[in-house]
């Protein structure tokens, strides 16, 4: 035994003697939480803000949905729309006018009633350009919302949001938008408390401290109790919430644990009820040894490689197709990602609100070689040096190394790998300064549109240089004007077939969420969005 270890043991022994309670035995944080109905939640990162009109991330989402509530909610088991602040609503026959009737007993945490005017004011704020809301586009189905958000009009009265009376709100859309109700449950459309914001500075600018504990006034099932930087955000049950009777948790403590290994150890030591994820190499271990703790759920996201079509050797669709067809996705999900992901042969995840795109190609190295030869690179000969870009992460690295080798083996193509830190990577991809780049997309709402409208000509998230007028027409005109779901989905299917034919991207897999939960966590059914409805969750230790 080394000197260092002896010393460590001495210190440990000493401190154990001093603080017996801390060392072994005793109740873990999770057990105490079960008793007191306090949920300990691994939340991934320190929230940037708790202002629903500024933030963009998942950690912020988990906190804000506890503190604020929009017009509607989603049933976590089915993702169907259920009443939130609005107890009922009517939709006009042409699908353009929504009339929301707000419940009379909805209250802000300071006792003020939640009114239609609160929503109109909050939405105006969310759309005001000076605030810099990245999710302003969630409002764009509303008439003139885009013009207001981009500064083309200054008069909010022209936007299709109308306060009929204190408890009635009417919204007018540009086109029938089947997923509009879903958008209302996105935090960017949540209301904020006007008087509070005005008290703490300019509501139309960033940099206000209205979201601090003690200042925050919300209308959700919980109120903000504590926010310690990089340590914890604690929320407590809101007794004034309209549905408080059904809220069973007394509080939630969100921990900003960035390192997945740290998070897993905290979970194992009984410090967390729920983690955000799990180190991929631990999945197999948990599956074998304690499957009751591991959850693997389909997620509304995909993983793909983007091509830069300005690169000469990648401008040929046959080359892109050959690259796509030579990847053995079954091997990848089974041995590399190992998290129950689904091999992807289309772009939109299967069964996205009843929409499934048929597989557009198959794993066929033989045909891939033929295509590559046809394109002028038989056996990979003469294929120019090409680089695959990914942002630094163990998962991306492993996948890239595996695919690099598959391309080498099946096609005889040498691809070099290049990793960059996140911001440099974004800069490279945004400026077309790449050849092939790793990417992923997570749907904002459950509708094929959330996956397909990004590929229109010069779409901000396209970044491949791909453009097809027929595709634009299908996504921007055919689908929005379709009279029913069947015909709408037909437009999308045709569009997706075009996308997959041209293949400016290679789909690799459809995502899953792998994370850990204690068995005592009840009322958290799996869903595609990883969306918890905290007011339905409770803790019950097994007897």
């Amino acid at each position, binding site marked *: 035994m080394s000197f260092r270890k002896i010393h*460590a043991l001495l210190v440990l022994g000493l401190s154990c003697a001093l603080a017996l309670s801390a060392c072994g035995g005793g109740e873990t944080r999770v057990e105490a939480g079960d008793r007191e109905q306090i949920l300990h939640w691994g939340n991934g990162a320190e929230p940037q803000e708790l202002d629903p009109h500024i933030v963009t991330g998942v950690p912020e989402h988990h906190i804000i949905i506890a503190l604020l509530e929009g017009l509607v909610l989603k049933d976590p088991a089915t993702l169907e729309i259920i009443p939130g602040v609005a107890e009922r609503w009517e939709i006009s026959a042409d699908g353009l006018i929504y009339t929301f009737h707000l419940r009379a007993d909805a209250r802000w945490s300071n006792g003020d009633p939640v009114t239609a005017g609160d929503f109109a004011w909050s939405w105006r704020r969310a759309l005001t350009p000076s605030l810099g809301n990245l999710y302003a586009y969630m409002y764009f189905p509303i008439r003139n919302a885009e013009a207001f958000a981009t500064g083309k009009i200054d008069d909010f009265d022209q936007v299709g949001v109308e306060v009929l009376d204190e408890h009635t709100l009417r919204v007018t859309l540009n086109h029938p938008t089947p997923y509009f109700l879903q958008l209302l449950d996105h935090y960017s459309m949540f209301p904020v408390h006007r008087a509070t914001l005005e008290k703490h500075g300019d509501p139309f600018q960033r940099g206000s401290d209205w979201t601090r504990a003690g200042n925050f006034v919300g209308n959700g099932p919980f109120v903000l109790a504590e926010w310690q930087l990089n340590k914890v955000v604690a929320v407590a049950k809101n007794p004034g919430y309209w549905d408080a009777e059904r809220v069973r948790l007394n509080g939630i403590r969100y921990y900003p644990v960035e390192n997945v290994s740290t998070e897993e150890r905290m979970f194992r030591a009984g410090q967390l009820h729920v983690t955000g994820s799990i180190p991929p190499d631990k999945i197999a271990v948990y599956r074998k040894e304690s499957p009751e703790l591991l959850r693997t759920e389909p997620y509304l996201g995909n993983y793909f490689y983007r091509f830069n079509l300005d690169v000469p050797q990648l401008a040929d669709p046959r080359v892109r197709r050959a690259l796509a067809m030579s990847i053995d996705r079954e091997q990848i999900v089974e041995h590399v990602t190992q998290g129950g992901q689904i091999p992807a042969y289309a772009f939109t995840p299967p069964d996205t609100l009843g929409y499934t795109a048929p597989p557009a190609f198959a794993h066929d190295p033989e045909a891939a070689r033929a295509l590559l030869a046809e394109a002028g690179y038989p056996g990979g000969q003469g294929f120019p040096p090409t680089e695959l870009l990914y942002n630094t992460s163990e998962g991306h690295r492993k996948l890239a190394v595996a695919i690099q080798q598959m391309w080498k083996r099946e096609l005889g193509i040498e691809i070099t790998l290049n990793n960059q830190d996140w911001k440099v990577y974004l800069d490279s991809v945004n400026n077309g300064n790449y050849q092939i780049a790793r990417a992923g997309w997570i749907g904002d709402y459950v509708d094929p549109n959330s996956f397909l409208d990004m590929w229109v000509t010069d779409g901000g998230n396209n970044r491949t240089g791909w453009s097809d007028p027929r595709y634009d027409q299908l996504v921007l005109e055919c689908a929005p004007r379709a009279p029913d779901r069947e015909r709408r989905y037909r437009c999308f299917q045709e569009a997706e077939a075009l996308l997959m034919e041209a293949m400016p991207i290679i789909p690799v897999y459809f995502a899953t969420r792998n994370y850990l939960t204690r068995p005592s966590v009840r009322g958290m059914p799996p869903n595609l969005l990883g969306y918890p409805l905290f007011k339905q969750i409770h803790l019950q230790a097994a007897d």
Partner: protein
Amino acid sequence: MPRFILHRLLQALPVLLVVVTATFFLVRLAPGGPFSDEKAVPAEVQRALEARYRLDQPLASQYLSYLGDLVRGDFGPSFRYPGRSVDEMIFAGLPTTAELGLYALLISLVLGTAAGVVAALRPNSAQDYLPMSAAMIGICLPSFLLGPLLILVFGIWLDWMPVSGWGNVPGDKILPALTLASGYTAYVARLSRGGMLEVLSQDYIRTARAKGLPEWIVVLKHGLRGGLIPVVAFAGPAFAGLLSGSFVVETIFQIPGLGRFYVQAAFNRDYTMIMGTTIFFAVLIVAFNLLADIAAVWLNPRLRHQYRKRAS
């Protein structure tokens, strides 16, 4: 001596100014702005954000207004955490980081020096190899490895220690302090052994021994003084680093300190936060290198004489 310190404090001003200026322009050269995101940022949002944080103004005027704010002690708002100021975030993390750094500093100085002296007294014997091998293992075990290892052994398998947190339950400060201290302890041990060996073979030590002074007085009073000079030179920047926080240890143990900001600010291109943490670190560097130089003078009577001469 006071004049020497005053001189050095005056020298600190240009040092800080150069650091501020260089960092200000370097971060703006780095690709990827503070607001880029996986989802495309619409042009109007980009414009609004740049206007909000004065990034739309010419670089020179941004620089001057930043300097102006700085003189008033205002580090500006964080770009990444829009509701917070950089001052607030640094002061929120500082007490934790300082406490953790102080423990690690004490452990490494006391333990490292002791190991170094013990080893130097009988070079090339078991008394030398044992602590020095431990020190080398300490260097081979970087904190990203030692931290998880200690947690696994003492936190999970033996269940003696909390696996994370800082000041939540008794005992949760032990593992992070040990983890952070280990590498530094090893350095101090190796350097002090080397320094001691150097000194113990010098004439004045022989003279002291010849005078019949007890060995422990020779070692501690005369030997340690000279033997610690390399340690002190290393300690200045090293301890400034300790007190500015450790990204790795804070991340592994889930400690709300400064070290995470230092790294994340760079990753996020949070310009003001990078500036704030860099300036903070620069102040620590200047202060600790000054302290180290004062310590070196104190350890070396001849230098003391020299400074006195220069001052007169």
